[in-house]
């Protein structure tokens, strides 16, 4: 047996992410004691109609989210308890809604910073209805072997260490959440563990006080002793002392109160929980509370350190009197274990996972990305530039200064070519249609292909083929004519021998001026001589020039279109931003720009 949270407790959680986190902790407890998850529903209007997935052992339990408590309890009539994980400004309304539901008997609130008046009103309302309102700022309630409400008890390892998989003989009531866990631990170390531990919250006026819970413990035959951890301020401890002294009690009571340091602090200086405030006329000090407890026959150790031995003393008395019998220890091997996430199992060398993908260029697992092994910041600080990053990520090679300069020029030369070309036009039309940047730029990029900007890879492939096979220009042209078709990288729509492409001239003269071996560029220029002799516009175009140069630099042919795509993306983003800035409106073609080579209007024949 236990109090407040039992095997028959079924829960609705009011709240969003914090509530979901609590549900996960509660699921760990349920899994440990081999009971189904006791969280049946969430109430959180923003997510109403959705579900939350809660890990239970190695499974996921789907828990529905409702808009109101009434819907939740109608769908899950077993619900009898609500946990409130709602912000302080809406906590009152949420708890009131739960208290007013006829099925709900217990409402526990974790919310901190709830106005005192709201807490008092909720406490009064609950008492009137004969229900329990626990909190605010309560860490929760935990009954060993039966039920956990909230995150009380901490991580799974701690649940096991504190033997919370089976009941002991000690009840615990604390204001502080952290100390509830500490006392649970002490009860498991110095005695046989707990029945139920309750965090009542550190506010000045908790919804339910020690006395109510002491009375419940008194009625619970499994509980033989109770530990209460108090604080200066208010009169809850004095009331507990009064209750204990009023008549002989079955349970033994151990108590401790914090706040003695107050006596030697500068006047007016106070700290700790919201409720830890001495009364204006000095009532509620740690000393007066301690004296009241002692006078009532409560066992009060001198310091917190004395609490463990005090618990032990009481436990030994209980043993001697035959009120409790020692609980046999569960052997290590029989203790419940939580399935590990795969990362932990891998770290422990327990599982082998076949990777889904493989990378050879980039590693993001440290504090900064490594490009082919080089930390990005170190590259920056040692004067490397964007072309070097391209070299590392596209070709796994650290370029020389000279090579990087060629790449830089290629990108600068092909960054944009005005609004009329296919790519820019597509981006501009998209921008005018109100399309966002990534899609509009993608529309432009989609145009890159065999006829626009996308000949770099193919040009590179065939120039490389020719040079590798030591072909003459004539052999090459004959081969291309027979097997491939027009030579990629040769020919221009507008430019010709007499109207040369300034970009090509610029790049060729720079690269040739460096005095490095450029067999592919040389071959491409020879090809141009032959093709322009036949037709003026069959010049080596910018794709072909880039291709030849990049193959000379050792870039793999399949990466070559990337240089154009990368460079032109700069222009496309510019065009999109330009249209945004102008506030351009939707455009369409004028019909006079279309040759309507269509049949005249005619009658539609009947459908057969």
């Amino acid at each position, binding site marked *: 047996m236990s109090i407040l949270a039992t095997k028959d407790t079924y829960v609705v959680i009011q709240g969003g992410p914090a509530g979901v*986190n609590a549900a996960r*902790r509660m699921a760990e407890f349920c899994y440990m004691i081999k009971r189904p998850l006791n969280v049946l529903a969430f109430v959180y209007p923003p997510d109403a109609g959705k579900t939350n997935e809660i890990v239970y052992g190695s499974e996921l339990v789907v828990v529905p989210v409702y808009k109101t408590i009434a819907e939740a309890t109608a769908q899950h009539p077993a619900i009898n308890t609500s946990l409130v994980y709602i912000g*302080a*400004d809406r906590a009152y309304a949420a708890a009131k809604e739960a208290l007013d539901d006829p099925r709900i008997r217990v409402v526990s609130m974790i919310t*901190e*910073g*709830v*106005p*005192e*008046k709201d807490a*008092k*009103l909720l406490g*009064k309302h609950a008492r009137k209805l004969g229900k329990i309102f626990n909190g605010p700022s309560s*860490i929760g309630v935990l009954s060993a072997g039966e039920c956990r409400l909230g*995150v*009380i*008890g*901490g*991580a799974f390892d*701690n649940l096991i*260490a504190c033997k919370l998989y089976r009941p002991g003989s000690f009840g615990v009531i*604390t204001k*502080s*959440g*952290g*100390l509830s*866990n*500490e006392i*649970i*631990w002490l009860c498991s170390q110095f005695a046989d563990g707990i029945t139920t531990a309750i965090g009542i919250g*550190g506010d*000045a*006026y908790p919804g339910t*006080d020690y006395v109510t819970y002491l009375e419940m413990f008194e009625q619970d035959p499994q509980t033989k002793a109770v530990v209460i*951890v108090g*604080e200066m301020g*208010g*009169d809850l401890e004095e009331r507990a002392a009064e209750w204990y002294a009023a008549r002989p009690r079955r349970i033994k009571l151990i108590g401790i109160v*914090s*706040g*003695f*340091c107050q006596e*030697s*602090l*500068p*006047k*007016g*200086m106070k*700290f*700790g*929980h*919201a409720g830890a*405030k001495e009364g*204006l006329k000095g009532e509620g000090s*740690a000393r007066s509370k301690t004296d009241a407890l002692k006078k009532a026959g409560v066992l009060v150790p*001198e*310091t*917190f*350190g004395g*609490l463990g031995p005090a618990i032990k003393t009481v436990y030994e008395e209980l043993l001697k009197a035959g009120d409790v019998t020692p609980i046999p220890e569960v052997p290590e091997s029989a203790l419940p274990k939580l399935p590990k996430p795969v990362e932990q199992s891998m770290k422990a060398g327990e599982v082998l996972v076949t990777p889904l993908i493989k990378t050879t260029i980039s590693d993001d697992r440290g504090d900064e990305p490594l490009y082919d092994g080089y930390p990005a910041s170190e590259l920056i600080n040692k004067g490397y530039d964007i072309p070097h990053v391209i070299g590392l990520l596209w070709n796994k090679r650290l370029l020389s200064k000279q090579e990087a300069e060629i790449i830089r020029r290629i990108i600068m030369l092909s960054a944009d070519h005005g609004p009329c070309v296919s790519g820019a036009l597509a981006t501009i039309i998209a921008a005018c249609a109100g399309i966002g940047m990534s899609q509009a730029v993608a529309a432009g990029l989609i145009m890159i292909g065999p006829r626009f900007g996308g000949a770099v890879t193919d040009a590179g492939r065939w120039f490389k083929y020719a040079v590798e096979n030591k072909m003459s220009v004539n052999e090459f042209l004959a081969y291309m004519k027979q097997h491939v078709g027009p030579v990629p990288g040769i020919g221009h729509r507008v430019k010709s021998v007499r109207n040369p492409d300034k970009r090509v001239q610029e790049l060729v003269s720079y690269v040739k001026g460096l005095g490095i071996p450029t067999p592919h560029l040389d071959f491409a220029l020879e090809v141009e001589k032959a093709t322009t002799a036949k037709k003026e516009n069959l010049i080596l175009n910018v794709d072909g020039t880039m291709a030849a140069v990049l193959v000379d630099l050792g870039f793999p042919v399949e990466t070559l279109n990337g240089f154009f795509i990368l460079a032109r993306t700069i222009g496309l983003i510019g065009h999109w931003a330009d249209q945004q800035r102008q506030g351009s409106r939707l455009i369409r073609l004028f019909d006079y720009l279309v040759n309507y080579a269509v049949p005249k209007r005619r009658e539609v024949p009947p459908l057969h």
Partner: protein
Amino acid sequence: MAKVLEGPGMGLLRKWGIQTPNYVVVSSLEEFEQLTQRHEWLKKEKLVVKAHEALGSRFKLGLVKVGLDVAEARTAVKDMLGRTVDTLVIGQVIVSEAVPHQEEYYAAVKSTRDGADILVASCGGIEVEANWDRVRRISVEVGEFPTNEALRAVVNEAGFSGPIAEKMVEFTAKLYRCFDNEDAQYLEINPVAQRADGELIALDVVTLLDGDAKFRHPDWTFPFAAEFGRAYTQNELDVMAVDSKVKGSVKLIEIPGGDIAMLPAGGGASVYYCDAVVARGGKLANYAEYSGDPPDWAVEVLTEKVCSLPGIKNIIVGGAIANFTDVKKTFSGIISAFRKAKAQGKLDGVKIWVRRGGPNEKEGLAAMRALRDEGFDIEVFDRYTPLTDIVDMALAKKDTPH
């Protein structure tokens, strides 16, 4: 609990129909001079000038001047503004009209577990403090409003009769309405005075509001005052600024003259650590606390401030077994700040004591233990060492088990 200074406190009383003397709050002499042009009463009435700061014993400090004419008030304003009391510089004074009156009474409303108590006495000022047995009270349950009959009964019981009793009934009803609607925790009017025309007027008010209710009071535009009768220090303000930004909490109060620096976790455990220090005869250099799984950087800021406290010999990094505060993560914030402090020489001759449990406790404690290899003087204990034993060891009442 949030203390509110007299000016805004009077403002709240007026909002609920309680009469107060005319007053102005000024922060410069120029402002005062401008206001004398605007308000006739400043020139006509006898005046009271008080420092408008969270200070105890203003009378003794000479920060209350009474019965002044406007020229004397000007001098008083000039003298008080900018004066330094301990660390506090007086930035505001309140100048109010001295109300001629015969009788002084007392009225207060005080928060209780079930609602509030209304307190009345037929004497006021220092007389009521000396004769506390003359105070009469009624309890009002939360969500209720006292009936006139109930108020009349307590007023009569306190010794009022005739027309003044009716006035007092009306006054206490207004006071309770103010208390209830303004989320107050304590309102004390001492004295309540009867003016020549027979009306009751609040001459001084102590106002404590529930700071947690600020979200529903958009007209609380005034700052809350420090409750310790001193101004917050820069370090305390810095930590409060961090506290307001993060989930969970970090808190710091400095206590000059101590040599045991506190850096414990948890609103409950932190006080037990302080108790242990005091019980062993140690002197606290501060109070601190972090809880609710705050981000590591927030704990780092708090740790930096704690390491910077002058003259410290021990740092107590204590804590119970956390429910959901990640020990590894919060300790990594503490460790970063420790390293910085050590490099700055702030930890020379300082011994660090650690005891903690909770999520990822093994990793967190191991990281702390590894600081020994970096030359830190640090002792690290886990959940098997009782909570406050590190304080006993730090104060050499218990041997370090090594």
